[in-house]
């Protein structure tokens, strides 16, 4: 039982999380263990985790999406310009922001499937393109690089409030999204297609999987997720900035990799991605409770990432041999 748990791909990320959590618990004490600690890392996990989920799907399928870093501010600004600058109803602004994400995702997907250009390069291109469009249009329309928005109470409650002043409502959206993606990846046949795509694209196509449509759907999902975070940010902060979002590019990839998904494609799980995200958030926020220099957190994350990557295969091999030796006695 224990050994079979160890052999699951998430085992490494789970152990990493336990070690990291205990480390910061020892340094941060009751404040970190209590509501302030939990809310700070959960809030961060929810934001980066929302984007990390579809990025993880893409990486399982062997693709990357860098453009999320530009979609996030593009969606924030679209919402803010529609509902703040032009004072149109907020639902229109939200719909506009989310559509930007879906549209960029669609373009990414079509370009990736129609050309032989690696998705890394392609989405760097769309990232620069969307960044430029966002900047250019924001200056053209609003005349400045920041746009204000006063959300109505219902939207504010749904997308931008915090329970007890600490736990942002985004946490629940994230958990809901986790459930949906987990269903899609692990229960629905769609998930099987994603794994097949990452394993061997040619065989997947020969097996009758609509690979092009699948890739486009995944890019639209990641575009949507980035746009959703952008829209939620503008509603909770009341303003949108053109410069937000670039940190999400590497942060989301790191969450996914710490969660045991390698770029080589074909393997990974939603649970792993969630554990990776939490680990990342705990290190990032826990450092502020620990009294250590905040920059020390980067070292830990870099080390975690490398350890996750390097031990992934070896760990499973080790677990397998453990079973062989001790198996009959248990």
């Amino acid at each position: 039982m224990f050994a079979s748990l160890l052999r699951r791909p998430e085992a490494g990320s789970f152990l990493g999380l336990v070690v990291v959590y205990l480390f910061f618990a020892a340094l941060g004490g009751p404040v970190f263990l209590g509501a302030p600690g939990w809310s700070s890392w959960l809030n961060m996990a929810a934001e980066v985790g929302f984007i990390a989920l579809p990025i993880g799907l893409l990486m399982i399928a062997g693709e990357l999406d860098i453009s999320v870093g530009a979609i996030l501010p593009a969606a924030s600004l679209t919402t803010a310009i529609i509902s703040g600058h032009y004072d149109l109803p907020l639902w229109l602004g939200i719909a506009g922001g989310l559509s930007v994400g879906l549209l960029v995702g669609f373009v990414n997907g079509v370009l990736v499937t129609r050309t032989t250009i690696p998705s890394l390069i392609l989405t760097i291109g769309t990232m620069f393109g969307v960044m430029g469009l966002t900047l250019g249009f924001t200056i053209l329309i609003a005349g400045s690089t920041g746009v204000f928005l006063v959300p109505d109470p219902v939207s504010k409650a749904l997308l931008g409030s915090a329970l007890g002043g600490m736990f942002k409502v985004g946490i629940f959206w994230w958990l809901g999204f986790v459930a949906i993606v987990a269903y899609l990846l692990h229960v629905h046949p769609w998930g099987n297609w994603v794994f097949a795509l990452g394993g061997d694209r040619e065989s997947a196509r020969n097996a009758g999987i609509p690979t092009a449509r699948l890739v486009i759907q995944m890019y639209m999902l990641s575009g949507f997720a980035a746009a959703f975070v952008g829209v939620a940010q503008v509603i909770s902060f009341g303003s949108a900035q053109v410069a937000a979002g670039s940190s999400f590019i590497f942060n989301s990839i790191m969450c996914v990799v710490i969660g045991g998904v390698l770029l080589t494609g074909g393997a990974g799980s939603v649970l792993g991605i969630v554990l990776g995200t939490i680990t990342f958030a705990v290190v990032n926020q826990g450092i502020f409770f620990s009294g250590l220099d905040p920059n020390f957190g980067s070292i830990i994350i870099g080390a975690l990432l490398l350890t996750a990557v390097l031990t992934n295969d070896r760990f499973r091999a080790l677990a397998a041999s453990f079973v062989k030796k001790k198996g009959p006695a248990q």
Partner: protein
Amino acid sequence: MSRFLRRPEAGAILSLLAVLALFTLGGADLGNLLGAASWVNFAANLGIVAIPVGLLMIAGEMDISIGAMIPAGSMAVAVISGHYGLSIWLGMAGALGIGVALGLVNGILTVRTSVPSLIITLGTLVAMQGLILTGAKVLTGTASVELQSPDWARQVFGQLIGGSHQVIILWWIGLAAVFWFLLHQSRFGNWIYAMGGDKVSARNAGIPVQGLTIGLFVLSATSASFVGMCQAILFNSAQVSGGMGYIFNAIVAVVVGGVLLTGGFGSVLGIVFGTLTFAVVAQGIYFTQIDRNWSNLINGAMLLVAVAMNEAFRKRAMAPLRRK
């Protein structure tokens, strides 16, 4: 003409001409633009990093840890020779040494595991960033360290020629010549192309694939720390931030320069022209009536056009010989 189009740098040269034409239409005085220092300085700093990154891409690998190596090089020289007041020689050795060390780590991890080098260097990027920041704080108590370097060092690494052009431009030209020799004239170049084409066949042909991969990673990390070192000497101080922009900028410059990300194809001349094009778009836009905020859009569009063109050129280059 068709012979020119088959060359890897053809796309980059055409892109540069197209951008210059666009900017002339946008109201730039070409004489003013070409005489300006801003974009040449920008190109030189980026170009020194872009060439070894491009070599890695030709060999089928990727290095994004350069983003941390630029501030690392600055910090190393500033902490050793500025904060501790040791000889500038030691500071320079420290800056370049840290590059060699990280390059070794990147290279060894890449050849010893089956993990894509993009992911490995993402890990070392973040770890290195933390190390620099923490190191600077712990050793000096601040995130910005002063450096007073001796005159000769300023002459060689941090001079402004004519008050505007950074001396690093000369370094760029020199290093480009060295890399050009390495890739196009020496046998190592042939090995790099072969590695990018097919690693297993390259190994069977007797090429020391592992050693060469490690060597290329050392070159890229050291080039980045060299740029950081020159910046610290020029500006008399080192900042912990900065450098992240180089990651995507270098990749764009290399790809616009005609290098295939899938490996096996590209040229140093192409990378140099790709860097020039990128720099003209990023900095030359100030000389036009075009709002500078559109420069990102132009760079993004240019990248996508460039990759599409690379594909077309590659197909053209591989087109079967015509029967006479």
